[in-house]
């Protein structure tokens, strides 16, 4: 690490004192950002927090500085978890230089050394990215070269090792349980419209691309032969004609036994396609996805959400209000068949239904089922998913009856007058909590959810917003009979009501109080209130937010900003700024 910093420092210094210092300085830019999230935890027997396990305070912070000069840029990011806040992985505990890079890019060639974030196509075989609010970062430390030999053609190559919290990157420093492999990949994309002048302004649009990624890992297993090189390839095509667009990507991976797929030697496949049509005032998009055994990690023993080389996007609607976002679907990399349809329509201004400002409507439906797995012959016996075997056979278009998730929702967004604005949504949800969250034996969540969000503008500077939400579970309700041993499966289950009132003064202040009440939980002691008060101050690019109360898991949007929060009771302070 020290060596890297030295090189970076030397480079920056050398460049700073170049002969043509004058023009150089004129082009120099420095910018950066800081954020600190701190939580003070308190005991709260009401929501089952009877022991803080010696942790009263959690602090997550980062500071980042970027330097740019024409075609050259470099940056560093410090991170501190002292210790990490609840809900973040304990491996994050610590302070240090988490990320650095230097890039030279003159449009024809781009070279990056250090930590690389990139993705090939939609990420089915490679994506390295960072999501601070989730404590997740799988940056590839190594190098990347991008070549653009001619207009419309982009070639990329990446090589490196992924970030694994604070674990060292050199093999000789690896811990016994950390044998991360090396990831290398190439990708090419050709955009016909940009490279063929005759197609420049054509209604017809087309681009194609392909990638190959492989990992070199270490076989540490006593039971299985682990392949030391695992390759994956993907091809993609994007087509458009006028208002229509179609894109598809197909990925294939050779056998890659791992802790996630139960050490089967089956190949992996994934398909992601979308078709859309849109014109002013109307847009529709249909997406389908098939995933079969596509977990791809640079450490075959990895089980958690880290060291993923690829990214299989969940395509369902992302809810941001607190009740619907309690049940957020996450991709099942071992197998899923998914479809999603979204329609947006604006009833024009000046019509009977559109009124003076127009009325915005949105419809979304998404469903995810399991794939079908058929048994296969292995050493003279029929097996399904047996470790060490070829796993199973799966017909490409067959859909299992096992439904993981379904969401049907309808939204109306209407400005009624210069002062009144209303948004309302109805959601019908099916959520297989046993599969998605691993609560073995817990009954499926079948819920109707509604919310209404009303904003009243008092004057040019001040507004009041009221948010009312309800969640009703059809089959799990107050009278539900449960065994004592099942009790823990009923956390957050049953009916909920929530309300929030927010008062804002532009450009700086937001004050809000909110309550979420699990009034219909079948277990009496779980019928809790989650009461929160929040003050936010924003000045330009600086935001300070102080909140106190109970927080249950989910996505919270207050003061105009959304983030995910874990369950807790206490006081939270967030300070963020960029310059």
């Amino acid at each position, binding site marked *: 690490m*020290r060596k890297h*910093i030295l090189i970076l420092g030397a480079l*920056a*210094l050398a460049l*700073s004192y170049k002969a043509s210092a004058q023009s150089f*300085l*004129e*082009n*120099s*830019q*420095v*910018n*950066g950002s800081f954020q600190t999230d701190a939580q003070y935890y308190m005991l709260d027997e009401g929501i089952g927090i009877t022991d803080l396990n010696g942790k009263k305070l959690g602090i997550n912070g980062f500071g980042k500085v970027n*330097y*740019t000069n*024409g075609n050259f*840029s470099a940056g560093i990011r410090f991170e501190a978890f002292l210790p990490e806040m609840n809900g973040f992985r304990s491996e994050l505990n610590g302070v240090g230089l988490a990320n650095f890079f230097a890039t030279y890019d003159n449009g024809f060639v781009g070279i990056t050394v250090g930590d690389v974030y990139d*993705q090939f*196509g*939609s*990420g089915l075989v490679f994506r390295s*990215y960072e999501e601070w*609010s989730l404590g997740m970062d799988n940056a590839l430390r190594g190098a990347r070269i991008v070549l653009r030999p001619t207009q419309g053609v982009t070639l990329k190559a990446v090589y490196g090792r992924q970030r694994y919290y604070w674990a060292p990157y050199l093999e000789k420093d690896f811990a016994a349980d950390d044998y991360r492999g090396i990831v290398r990949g190439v990708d090419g994309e050709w955009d016909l419209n*940009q490279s063929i002048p005759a197609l420049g302004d054509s209604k017809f*649009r087309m681009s194609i691309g392909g990638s190959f990624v492989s990992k070199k890992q270490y076989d540490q297993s006593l039971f299985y032969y682990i392949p030391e090189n695992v390759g994956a390839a993907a091809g993609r095509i*994007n087509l458009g004609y006028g208002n229509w*667009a179609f894109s598809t990507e197909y990925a294939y991976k050779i056998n890659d036994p791992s802790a996630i797929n139960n050490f089967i030697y089956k190949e992996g496949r994934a398909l992601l396609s979308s078709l*859309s049509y*849109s014109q002013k*005032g*109307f*847009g*529709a*998009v249909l*997406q389908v996805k098939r995933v079969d055994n596509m977990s791809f990690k640079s450490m075959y023993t990895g089980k958690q959400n880290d060291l993923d080389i690829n*990214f299989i*996007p969940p*395509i369902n609607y*992302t809810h941001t*209000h607190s009740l619907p976002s309690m049940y957020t679907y996450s991709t099942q990399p071992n197998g899923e068949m998914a479809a999603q349809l*979204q*329609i*947006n329509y*604006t009833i024009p201004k000046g019509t009977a239904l559109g009124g003076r400002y127009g009325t915005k409507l949105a419809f979304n439906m998404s469903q995810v089922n399991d794939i079908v797995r058929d048994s296969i012959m292995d050493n003279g016996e029929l097996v399904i998913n047996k470790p060490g075997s070829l796993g199973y056979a799966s017909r490409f278009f067959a859909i299992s009856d096992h439904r993981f998730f379904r969401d049907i929702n309808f939204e109306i967004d209407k400005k009624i007058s210069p002062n009144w604005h209303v948004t309302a949504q109805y959601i019908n949800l099916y959520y297989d909590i046993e599969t998605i969250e691993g609560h073995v034996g817990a009954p499926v969540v079948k819920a109707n959810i509604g919310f209404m969000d009303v904003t009243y*503008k008092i004057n*040019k*500077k*001040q507004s009041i917003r009221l948010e009312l939400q309800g969640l009703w579970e059809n089959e799990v309700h107050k009278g539900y009979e449960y065994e004592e041993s099942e009790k823990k499966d009923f956390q957050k289950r049953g009916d909920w009501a929530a309300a929030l009132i927010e008062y*804002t*003064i*532009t450009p700086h202040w*937001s004050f809000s109080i909110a309550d979420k009440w699990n009034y219909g939980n079948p277990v009496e002691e779980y019928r809790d209130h989650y009461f929160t008060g929040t003050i936010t101050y*924003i000045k*330009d*690019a600086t935001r300070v937010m102080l909140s106190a109360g109970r927080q249950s898991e989910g996505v919270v*949007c207050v003061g*105009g*900003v959304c*983030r995910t929060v874990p369950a807790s009771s206490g006081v939270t302070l967030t300070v963020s700024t*960029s310059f």
Partner: protein
Amino acid sequence: MKKLMTLLLLALFATGLQAQSKTDLPNVTLKDLNGKDVNIAKLSNNGNPIALTFWATWCGPCIKEHNALNEVYQDWQDETGVKIYAVSIDDSRSTAKVKPMVDGKGWEFDILLDVNSDLKRAMNVSNPPHTFLFDGSGKLVYQHTGYIDGAEDDLYEEILKVAKKKK
């Protein structure tokens, strides 16, 4: 190591503080809705101001903000010549939904796709919405994070300060 870091930071700051940069628009290439490459550093608007507004299809406050901006955008353009580039930070989960949503809501902005968060990182955006305003020469004059109802009026005041033609 600490010393080295301090040295490096000092060097960075020393060069940065004396800097009188030509343009604050970073050298990052994004795609527009037709898949065409757009280099941010080369954006120009005939000497009129440019606003970059970061948003995502899953971000409620962002959609509120852009609905509000869309209502006044035509007037703003007539009065100040400002051009708004709405930068979607949707990743592959939702990039396919961007165009249908933009069209469905009738937004008039130029849309750019930051699928790999390159511009988001280069401009130090932590959470959307986040708005940047550049004057006609590409100098950053104002930025704001979050959206509070009515915040578009504050942005407009800033635009008026740097606009060439005023009403």
